């Protein structure tokens, strides 16, 4: 019996990653989870993503119903349609997860993110930063003689655009909350 010639790292034909009948186009989806606000629930959700190799683009979590001990987790994730379906089904299996909503496919939704940006500089740059902040309707929440901290709320691409403009004007630090999202219309 002859030895097989195995190329290192050759996994092109591996059954583990062949998904022939499925679309390979990655999509970005925003998922909203209603979960029991109990110890370890966030670890369960994050552990699912890391354990099964799914992506997290952003994640926000906070209690939304104090008497009912319910928290809302909003996750922006990327994957092929089949992976997205798997993620939703796997999230649904977690015992403290009450509801999984895919806001990307379940009708229109609003998505907002809050960002704080610290911009240092003086002279023209400082004036320009303030002028652009006005255009983006960003608020000044802290100011020194040579810096501003801007507060900006909006969709992620608006925050991206503002940050890109601030970079040459002296952006030194930024904090973003990640996406919070709700479906439009009157029902939950």
């Amino acid at each position, binding site marked *: *019996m002859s030895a097989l010639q195995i190329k290192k790292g050759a996994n092109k034909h591996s*059954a583990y990653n062949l998904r*022939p009948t499925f679309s390979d186009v990655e999509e970005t989806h925003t998922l909203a989870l209603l979960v029991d606000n109990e110890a370890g629930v966030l670890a369960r959700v994050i552990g699912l993503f890391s354990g099964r190799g799914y992506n997290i683009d952003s994640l926000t979590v906070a209690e939304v119903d104090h008497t009912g001990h319910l928290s809302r987790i909003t996750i922006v994730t990327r994957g092929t349609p089949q992976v997205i379906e798997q993620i939703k*089904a796997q999230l649904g299996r977690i*015992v403290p997860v009450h509801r999984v909503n895919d806001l990307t496919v379940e009708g229109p939704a609003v998505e907002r993110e809050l960002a704080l940006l610290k911009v240092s500089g003086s002279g023209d740059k400082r004036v320009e930063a303030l002028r652009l902040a006005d255009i983006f309707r960003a608020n000044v929440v802290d100011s020194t003689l040579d810096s501003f901290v801007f507060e900006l709320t909006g969709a992620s691409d608006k925050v991206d655009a503002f940050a890109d403009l601030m970079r040459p004007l002296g952006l030194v630090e930024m904090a973003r909350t990640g996406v919070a999202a709700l479906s439009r219309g009157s029902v939950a």
Partner: protein
Amino acid sequence: MVVQALKDQGVDTIFGYPGGAVLPIYDEIFQQNDIQHVLVRHEQGAVHAAEGYARSTGKPGVVLVTSGPGATNAVTGSTDALLDSIPIVVLTGQVPTFMIGSDAFQEADTVGITRPCTKHNWLVKDTGGLAHTLHEAFHVATAGRPGPVLIDIPKDVQFANGTYTPPAKASAQRYQPQVKGDMDSIIELVEALESAKKPVFYTGGGVINSGTAASQLLSELVDATGAPITSTLMGLGAYPASGKGWLGMLGMHGLYEANMAMHDCDLMINIGARFDDRITGRLDAFSPHSKKAHIDIDPSSINKVIRVDIPIVGDVGHVLEDLLKVWKSRGRKMNREAIAKWWKQIEEWRAINCLNYKPSDKVIKPQYALERLEALTKGRDRYITTEVGQHQMWAAQYLTFEAPNRWMTSGGLGTMGYGFPASIGVQMAHRDALVINVAGEASWLMNMQELGTAMQFRLPVKQFILNNERLGMVRQWQELLHGERYSHSWSESLPDFVKLAEAFGAKGIQCKDPADLDDAIMEMINHDGPVVFDCLVEKHENCFPMIPSGEPHNKMLLGDASTKDAIKEGGAVMV
């Protein structure tokens, strides 16, 4: 309170090992007689024993271990139960709440460690919530797709007095999986079944987990439709091996006729199986011309690896009941003519006789040993457990199962060392039954300390060890894949198994001559007590048939002659 909750949940047996952080619970156990505690010799054994108990009874198995090393030793068994969907409730002791996080003696982050290897777990920080959590744990372990759960109880919570609340109704629980299948999908499946020319049922462990009624419904459906049925390793026994629709096991070491039927069918009905990679082989060539239906209680199993045309989320028993009702009410239609032709094709595949092997009168062939074990135990209500490896596949091929809950094996995780403790759990649940663990010598040594448990509790488990002095499956893969470089796959310095048995006070039998085998097996069966049967078998036998990694169902290897260069570059990276 813990013991009271266990009693109220109908627990009669627990498997465990005491330690500092569970002493208050052990003190409770000492003062009662309703629950029997089985002292194992290693915590891993406790979990596997509980799995054997659960798998053979349909009831959840219960484990009680201490904090730190007790909990970490339970991790393998818990993962095993998760992969095979076995309901297990593991109770672990924990250091007192005020010491958590201080790196206290025998402290480990048990809920952190076991989060990915349980269906759910809890750290109970106040006694008030203890009873509720215990009851919820039993509900989560058994409802929906079963699985292991773990409750971590700090020692001060065990000591404190609290108000006990009896179990609430299951409907009051937050965890409520869907059990009824969608009627439109069921009707769609019936329509597909009525017109199918080459249908095949592909069933799995989910049928057994759904209960004996589900197995009966399955047999009724298969026999009434006249369609062939194959099963995964985990599903053996749900449909009787003597039934007329039975093709045998499918998959990597499944029967030729079963795999060919899967490949060529035009309607595949997956009932409680999960398209595991041991089953599907190469995905892009998996059953290319079939319409696929999938009945599963776990929505995440559907479309996970194979896209199906008719997904039905629900409990197998409920769905089968509805399916039969609809099919009958529509006039029990089937394309009988086409199915008769389909069976003719299957008979041609069967005529290849894929389980054929070269017999010998000089050495015991492992296949022969299992054929004789089968012949000499047939007709008895027999429970079989296995370890993991070649012997496991041969046992699945050569032994037959007429009823569910008679076959306990580590399928998904492939845990060597599972079989012996599992046989102890089975024997605890069925004291008078014949319980045989078909083992390899290497797997058996992984949990051989449980011989002490078998002796202490007078459990007459039979350890049928096919001893080839090799890690047979590893050796086989090295032969096929790594140029016959047998790196560390032989068992050197093996013990004398007869003397080893005798050292524990058990009976040891060694057999190496095929002519003596029948008498030796009968001696094993007739001995009233644990037996370690050292069956010296052919050392270089390979397990066939086999689907090489990276190949589809219709590219099976049937024997040694066809193995040359069987695994191509792509297949070589897979396990």
